[in-house]
């Protein structure tokens, strides 16, 4: 079970980069099809089913159509930034995938190959750093179009992404407290060792992470930067053909990366539940599967079928979250802008901060008491479940998110912004007189 030689490392790295890149782009193409078919199913329609069996060739037809369409360039647009923007929005979404481990290490003739493009020592921080760069593409698209709707979309996207990045980062701190390291391979390993997926002992962090991921990917109910009914389509109003579809590739690769992150951080990544055979981790130059009672490391036995099985586990978990993204989009209506800001700054941020403190205190107390292993996980689960119940109870009481028909005392600014209720409109003298006349 030796490590790779430098030459083999370079060759395998190149192969992995190309393979992962192609798989992501293929997955993105089929996610658009999945979105259309699932939305059709939810709305009791059929969706695209004419091109190929079950419409499976539809993404290819769409791709050809978008490449052959005419590219337009608005006369008053800033040409350089207008062309740069789609590229800038695609790149961060694609490169983030580099640090996500997608299967157990694969043994080959030349050594054991890690199934991760780049096992950076800063793993999670790299993810956060790139996530924070995603806003440039959207902003530049909105600004360079020189179109007021596009600009509004750009302003909204930057405000939204700044707001939710804070909650996103804070919701990850409990994971780091528990794992004690920022590399994603170690986070997967620690979940295997604990015997619990972090979604269980850190349930509130999981909820906060999922919600902020929706905001970061600009998906409904947080798709205010696009908001078809108010801003046409926001930042990409002026785009056509392949540049337009680049924004969609960016959006779907963001969804894919966010789903893969949720699976890795909170659902054990590529590890198969209730099975010890896939526990593998590099420890002092050797691939181990755990520690014996005496503290001696036990060597792991990687196999090609284990890599395959763990990859399938990872794919299933990721697809589940992709499906949730699509499902939510066709179920929930869009927030109002003030609601988005309210939720981000006044609900998510304080909750995430308080939860970090709660987890830190609980972990410290359990460490002092000498609780370890599964019992440790279960104790944390109980504390987190309590916090989650309290959180859900307070959020879901029509206090935070009120609909369009909100009671008047909760509307944004009293009389001017809020339209009168139908009964009040009827109560004006003219209407009342006419009603009486009839």
């Amino acid at each position, binding site marked *: 079970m030796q490590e790779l030689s430098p030459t083999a490392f370079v060759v395998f790295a190149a192969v992995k980069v190309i393979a992962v890149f192609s798989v992501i782009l293929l997955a993105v193409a089929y996610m658009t099809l999945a979105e259309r078919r699932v939305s059709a199913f939810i709305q009791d329609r059929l969706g695209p089913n004419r091109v190929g069996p079950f419409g499976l060739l539809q993404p290819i037809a769409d791709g050809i159509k978008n490449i052959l369409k005419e590219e337009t360039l608005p006369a008053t647009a*800033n040409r350089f930034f207008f062309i740069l923007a789609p590229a800038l929005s695609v790149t961060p979404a694609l490169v983030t995938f580099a640090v996500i481990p997608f299967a157990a290490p694969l043994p080959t003739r030349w050594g054991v190959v890690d199934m991760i493009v780049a096992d950076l020592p800063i793993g999670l*921080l790299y993810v956060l750093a790139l996530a924070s760069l995603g806003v440039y593409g959207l902003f530049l698209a909105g*600004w360079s179009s020189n179109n007021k709707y596009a*600009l509004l979309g*750009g302003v909204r996207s*930057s405000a939204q*992404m*700044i707001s939710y990045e804070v909650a996103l980062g804070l919701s990850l701190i409990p994971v780091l407290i528990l794992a004690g390291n920022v590399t994603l391979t170690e986070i997967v390993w620690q979940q295997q060792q604990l015997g619990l997926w972090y979604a269980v002992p850190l349930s509130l962090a999981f909820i906060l992470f999922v919600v902020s991921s929706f905001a970061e990917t600009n998906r409904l109910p947080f798709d205010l930067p696009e908001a078809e009914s108010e801003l046409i389509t926001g930042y990409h109003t002026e785009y056509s053909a392949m540049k337009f579809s680049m924004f969609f590739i960016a959006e779907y690769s963001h969804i894919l990366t966010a789903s893969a992150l949720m699976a890795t951080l909170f659902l054990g990544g590529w590890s198969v539940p209730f099975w010890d055979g896939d526990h593998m981790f590099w420890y002092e130059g050797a691939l181990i599967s755990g520690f014996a009672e005496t503290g001696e490391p036990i060597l792991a036995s990687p196999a090609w079928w284990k890599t395959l099985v763990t990859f399938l586990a990872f794919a299933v978990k990721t697809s589940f979250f992709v499906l949730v993204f699509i499902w939510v989009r066709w179920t929930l209506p869009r927030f109002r802008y003030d609601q988005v800001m309210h939720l981000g700054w006044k609900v998510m941020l304080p909750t995430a901060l308080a939860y970090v403190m709660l987890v830190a205190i609980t972990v410290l107390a359990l460490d002092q008491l000498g609780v370890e292993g599964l019992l440790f996980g279960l104790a944390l689960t109980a504390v987190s479940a309590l916090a989650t119940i309290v959180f859900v109870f307070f959020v879901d009481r029509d206090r935070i998110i009120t609909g369009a028909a909100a009671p008047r005392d909760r509307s944004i600014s009293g009389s001017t912004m809020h339209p009168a209720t139908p009964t009040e409109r009827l109560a004006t003298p003219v209407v009342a007189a006419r009603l009486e006349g009839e």
Partner: protein
Amino acid sequence: MGEVIFFILATMAVGGAVGVVLQTNPVGSLLFMVGTLASVAGIFVLLEAHFLAAIQVLVYAGAIMVLFLFVIMLLNLGHDYEPDVKRGLGAFLSFGVVGTLAGVLAGQVRGAEENPVYQFFPGPEGMDRLLQEQGIVGAIARPLFTDYVLAFELVGVLLLVALVGAVALAKKRA
């Protein structure tokens, strides 16, 4: 290999910095600034300071520059019909001040081995051992929260005061 990459990144960093100053379009300046910050992050990676590199991108490119963007957007600057950046005596004055500062800093670096700070550097082997023992984050976090905790907290309080001051000033005008 490492040296070649260093010179590419260093050229990008300096070129970006020059671009920031020469651009008349604030959005162009801003993107050059992001490029410079990213190149400096790359140099940090070459020095195996991965944590600093990530924080550089996360805090400067990802948060502070986005706030700059926000201001540019809300003021709707940077369109062709009028130049937003005006040059004058102030430009020369600031160039002089920054140049002097850079000169003083460069003078400090030259005698690195006699510099009192140098003795804290554990050397390449020491760094490797430190990273092995404490991890990439721990190597920075431990001294920060033990030896330098007072300075760290004071900086935090200072930033908080600045924040409260900004809010107070903004409120007064309304």
